[in-house]
């Protein structure tokens, strides 16, 4: 008799906890969005005074960032980030696409399964290690054979290209593999060589995925910080050549955050807002393209 009562109470407990958890899970689910919202709230709150005092257009197009005189314009950093990102993409996109093709169609099977973990490793290496190797190998080489001191857009682009490469390779590879077999067989049965099939049929079919990989790679490049500080020289100028030193948006944040105060503090957070919005837009476009491609 007693055991039935106990069983009944246990049953009741589980029923209540089930109902509780049914609603509690919603909170967990929303946690990411809440954090995103919190971050946006914070950086907008701290950055908003800068936009008001300086004016959004003046801030973005101003060419002087001078802490001593309280003048803040982020155009040099925007251009620095832009050049470095474009440079990185120029190197890593062709390299990445052809490596992806290599992995899906050209390499012997054993090599393929050896290369994939290797590419995964490239993703996991900390950015400071990339920066260190860039400092020790790349910068002296550029110093010797190029101009200037070696800390340059060129060095930063190359380092960034290696960091972005795995993203482009793996997403492109997935896109190519996702193209239906019928496309391949159809092309081959019409007498095309394998290369013609790859280049004229598979790649165009995988195009949305490839573009998505480029956009996501761009997002990664724009957001990179530590490796950049170590090889780019951090001068606040509009760079005039690939050998010129420059500064990225992320670099400014890392270097100046700890001591900023007043309008400087606001300006840094305003820079954070610009970064945040930029990456959000880029990533959204990239993800829409990734998920939107025909299955």
């Amino acid at each position, binding site marked *: 008799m007693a055991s039935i009562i106990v069983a009944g109470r246990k049953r009741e407990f589980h029923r209540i906890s089930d109902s509780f958890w049914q609603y509690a899970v919603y909170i967990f689910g929303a946690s990411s969005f809440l954090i995103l919202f919190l971050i946006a709230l914070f950086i907008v709150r701290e950055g908003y005074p800068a936009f008001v005092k300086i004016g959004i257009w003046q801030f973005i197009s101003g060419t002087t960032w001078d802490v001593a005189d309280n003048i803040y314009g982020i155009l040099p950093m925007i251009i620095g980030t832009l050049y470095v990102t474009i440079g990185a993409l120029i190197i890593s996109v062709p390299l990445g696409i052809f490596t992806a093709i290599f992995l899906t169609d050209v390499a012997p099977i054993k090599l393929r399964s050896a290369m994939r973990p290797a590419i995964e490793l490239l993703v996991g290496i900390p950015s400071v290690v990339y920066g260190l190797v860039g400092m020790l190998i790349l910068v002296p080489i550029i110093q010797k054979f190029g101009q200037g001191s070696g800390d340059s857009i060129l060095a930063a682009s190359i380092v960034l290209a*290696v960091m972005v490469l795995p993203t482009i390779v793996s997403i492109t590879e997935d896109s190519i593999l996702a193209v239906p077999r019928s496309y391949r067989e159809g092309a081959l049965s019409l007498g095309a060589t394998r290369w013609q099939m790859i280049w004229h049929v598979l790649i165009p079919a995988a195009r949305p995925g490839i573009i998505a990989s480029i956009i996501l790679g761009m997002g990664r490049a724009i957001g990179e910080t530590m490796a950049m500080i170590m090889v780019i020289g951090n001068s606040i100028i509009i760079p005039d050549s690939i050998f010129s030193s420059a500064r990225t948006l992320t670099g400014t944040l890392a270097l100046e955050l700890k001591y900023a105060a007043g309008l400087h503090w606001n300006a840094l957070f305003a820079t954070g807002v610009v970064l945040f919005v930029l990456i959000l837009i880029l990533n959204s476009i990239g993800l829409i393209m990734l998920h939107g491609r025909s299955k």
Partner: protein
Amino acid sequence: MKITPKVTQSFAWCICWIAGMTTIAFLIIIVGYVFVNGIGSISWEFLTTNPRGGLKGEGGILSAIAGTVYLIILTLIIALPMGIGAAIYLAEYSSNNLFTRIVRFGVESLAGIPSIVFGLFGFALFVIALGFNFSILSGSMTLACLCLPVIIRTCEEAIKTVPVTLREASLSLGATRWQTITNVVLPAAIPGIVTSIILTVGRVVEETACLYVTMGGSSNMPTSIWSNARTLSLHLYYLAMETTAINKALATGVILITIIIILNFSTRWLSNRFISLYQGNGGK
């Protein structure tokens, strides 16, 4: 010579090989350079003493190792429950409505935010506003936000892969939905959850930018979550930029890369085991 499609193909094959080999070459150069130049500086003393500071970068990396370990544990404690909870929501309770789309948007967007923006947020909120100061706590709370999307994605996959039959069996035995989740589904998804843990550990080890502004960088052995501390990545940065001990920086790099190799290997091994577990006997 006529450029036949065959010729184009041979040419293209060449380019592909060059591309593939270049990618591998990058890896070999980076890992090779670090290992060849750094391994010489690794000694028992290096691994077991604290950094002593000074221009020559004397001492070892013990406190950096401790800092990294504490950071990993604390970040996991904070992020794992939230992440698994969100994964449970997405895998079990969500339907195709606006709320779910907002949730997914949150997860995907958070994944793309650069680490320095997290650092900005963490510095303003945890270090200054909440008064945690430069500490392991500030670092791990910031890092937990950063790692959340990874955990959610991986765990959601893991939970979704649990066969429906298991759930149905449990429910038909009279268990409530929540009981089913905690006693049947989650344990079955453990390999996937462990994978997400390993991925998070990898991310924590790799991160530098957001910790640069939230952890402080003291070279002393951390004694609590309020301690000012540094991680291996931060230590490498300080060595490289502020001392003449480049060889020690490289040695730290060796340790870091070794950790990443071990983590990657474990993830692969675990996913393979996971797949065979469910394809082998239809799930247990």
